[in-house]
């Protein structure tokens, strides 16, 4: 049918690098309307959002902390998207990881920290994989649309979490719907003194680098990319498409599970229902903004974390609602998609 790939002109490198910048500028232009409406000056707001957090040590540390879970979910989503498996279920997989991690952590009394934390990570990865398994199998056996199944399982997971927290795991001391606190030796070490940047940040960066290496340098990664670019040709070339996609879906789930482990082990030290304010969904934005490449995913995770942190400053200084950052993220996603699309059809500025 219509074959645009061959007709379209590849965008020059400078333009591809410029895309995120264009997207950000356009987004802020759009959002300034809202900021004006909220009674603040857009220039002050941009300063508070993008510059101010970078000027202070504690805020800089906050950015790293905030980037941790969304870097992991971003990497998770990207792994799946690369081969054309649209895993929208990182949120549920994150909670699955958090449940297992909390269970291991609570029962880790007396273990050396390395062992306790190692077990939590393994358990969390496994849990994410298990939660990703059903949609992945349905997809590879029956071609059931994974977008629907992974999304639905997110809600199922929220029910499971709340059932757990209101039933067997209700904190015996406070009676709050939160799990018991994990053992001290299972709590993640803090990386930067007087901050909440924890071991999870290193795990996130290592995950991103490993996936980077995997996609670029391994047979498995090349095959995933081939499947994502042209499924039929990949099949023709003898790539076991279903099996590869299934594996990618499980890896994606596992990495999303690690994000849950990090929040339990490094931030809260127990499981609560509000552990994630949608990190799984933010992962989709991170992966898309990063154009499914690992350097891009790392940068966009940091950038979104910056906006999140900046929204807190802006709220404090200018009294604009903190939800501003959510609005910006959503707008940024839409604008990026639009710019990407335009770019695919080649934009030319005069001659």
């Amino acid at each position: 049918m219509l074959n645009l790939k061959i007709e379209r002109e590849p965008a020059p490198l400078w333009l591809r690098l410029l895309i995120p910048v264009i997207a950000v500028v356009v987004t802020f232009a759009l959002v300034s309307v809202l900021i004006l409406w909220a009674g603040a000056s857009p220039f002050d707001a941009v300063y508070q959002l993008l510059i101010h957090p970078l000027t202070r040590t504690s805020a800089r540390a906050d950015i790293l902390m905030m980037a941790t879970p969304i870097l992991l979910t971003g990497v998770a989503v990207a792994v799946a998207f690369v081969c054309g498996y649209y895993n929208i279920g990182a949120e549920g997989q994150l909670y699955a990881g958090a449940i297992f991690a909390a269970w291991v952590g609570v029962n880790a009394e007396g273990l050396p920290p390395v062992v306790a934390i190692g077990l939590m990570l393994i358990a969390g990865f496994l849990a994410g994989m298990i939660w990703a398994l059903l949609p992945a199998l349905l997809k590879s056996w029956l071609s059931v649309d994974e977008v629907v199944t992974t999304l639905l399982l997110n809600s199922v997971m929220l029910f499971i979490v709340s059932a757990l927290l209101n039933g067997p795991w209700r904190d015996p001391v406070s009676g709050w719907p939160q799990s018991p606190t994990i053992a001290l030796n299972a709590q993640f070490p803090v990386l930067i003194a007087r901050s909440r940047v924890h071991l999870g940040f290193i795990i996130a960066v290592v995950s991103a680098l490993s996936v980077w290496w995997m996609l670029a340098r391994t047979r498995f990664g090349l095959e995933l990319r081939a499947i994502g670019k042209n499924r039929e040709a990949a099949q023709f070339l003898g790539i076991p498409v279903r099996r590869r996609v299934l594996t990618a879906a499980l890896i994606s789930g596992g990495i999303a599970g690690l994000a849950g482990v990090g929040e339990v082990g490094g931030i809260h030290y127990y499981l609560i229902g509000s552990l994630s304010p949608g990190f799984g969904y933010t992962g989709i934005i991170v992966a898309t903004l990063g154009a499914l490449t690992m350097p891009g995913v790392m940068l966009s995770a940091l950038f979104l974390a910056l906006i999140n942190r900046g929204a807190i400053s802006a709220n404090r200084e200018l009294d604009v609602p903190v939800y501003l950052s959510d609005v910006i993220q959503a707008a940024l996603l839409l604008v990026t998609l639009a710019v990407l699309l335009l770019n695919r059809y080649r934009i030319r500025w005069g001659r």
Partner: protein
Amino acid sequence: MPPIIEMRGITKRFGALTANDGIDFSIEPGEIHALLGENGAGKSTLMKILYGLYQPDSGDVRINGQPVRLTSPAEAIANGIGFVSQHFALVPKFTVAENVVLGHEGSRTLHPTAMSTRVMETAASLRLLIDVNAVVGRLSVGEQQRVEILKALYRDCKVLIMDEPTAVLAPGDIAALFDILRVLQGRGMAVIIITHKLDEVFAISQRVTVLRLGKVVGEVRTQDSTPAALAQMMVGRQTVAVARNSDHRRQDAVKLDVRDLRLTDRRGGLRLRGLSLEVRGGEIVGVAGVAGNGQSELVSVLTGMAAPDSGSVTVGGAPLPFRDPKAVSRLKVARIPEDRLKGVIGDLSVQDNLMLESVEGFTRMGHLDRARIRANAEALIRAFQIKAAPTDLARTLSGGNIQKIILARSLGHAPEVVIAAQPTRGLDIGATEYVHQKLLEQKERGAAILLISEDLEEILLLSDRIVVIYEGRIAGTFAAQDARIDQIGALMTGAHPHA
């Protein structure tokens, strides 16, 4: 008569490559103008510039003497230019009329009957035979092409560009297409046609422009030239003697044995009805037939993409697994698919495409051996004269060079059996010649070759034996020595042979 289109000094670069280098090109109303050149010479690029798909780096385009800037197909259409590309842009679920009107509705509300009447009028006035209420997905390739032409005409085009229109057509459809083009010509339209077949150039065009390496090397009146002269102009040297298969003596053991294949398609139609054939080592068996008689299905089964309802295939005595492309290529079956886009991943590099089929040979514990991948690509690029660098994205190559990737990948590794489906579709004379040579080399090596082609001449040129496929089974077999075109032709159309 003044030219309706005049392109002057058109230059277009892609990175370091100059695809069009100062090209002058013009066409007059009522003229059919052939554009000729080797694969990668820059023909499609020049036409895409005229259709506003690409912007030239320099040079200008005049329509009726007026300079215009065509920055999008919409502008080209508004200027009376129509483009029928090799890959049709039709909505399969829409009717012919809907497809034709789409994007050119004229008003916000659509009146189905008025719409189809208008389309029918356009078609009738041009003596285009087509049912405007038919659903496009059900039409044959030739009919879909007619829809594309109708689409252009409905938008009132004065200049019709056709990029390799005959590459996808069966011989009968080609004649029908040429009849249509003559009608258009009679009405003063200008037609630009790209083709690699010299006999077609002489059958239809009044003028020829020949491109080589992005430059115009000649512009002549067709009647003042000869096929040999044009061929020489195209390749820039005396053309080599035609490679042909004249040694039919060798008879090795049967290497490819196809028994009683039956296959039902998704819509429940019987596509293969007990098809059997065998190919011996050192033998080329040509499958002749009108498109749509089961060739595609046969190729799908043999290349590991589809499973038949019943029947068996053995390769060198070993059963060929169905729906397992990897296993098929492990049995040393070289596969040349009929649709290039299904054999090459456009968004991956040339070097990746050249190794993916045998990826296990390029990995150490799952880790890609980049040095070996590159060396493999460089060797194959040299051996098969692919015009590309190893790291170029495959989709930036010209059609012929994409086909060479497939050839290099499949023939580069000493196959036992070769399944060649339309191996020279869209290739220029030199490249076609080259493919024929490679197939003959494989025959000499002792490989069993099954050649499926809609080009009867190609089949006659290369085959030791010719089988005719009709309605999903083999309707007749001929030894090359005593193959008679009239008999083959009769069998192809389902008539009984009177031997």
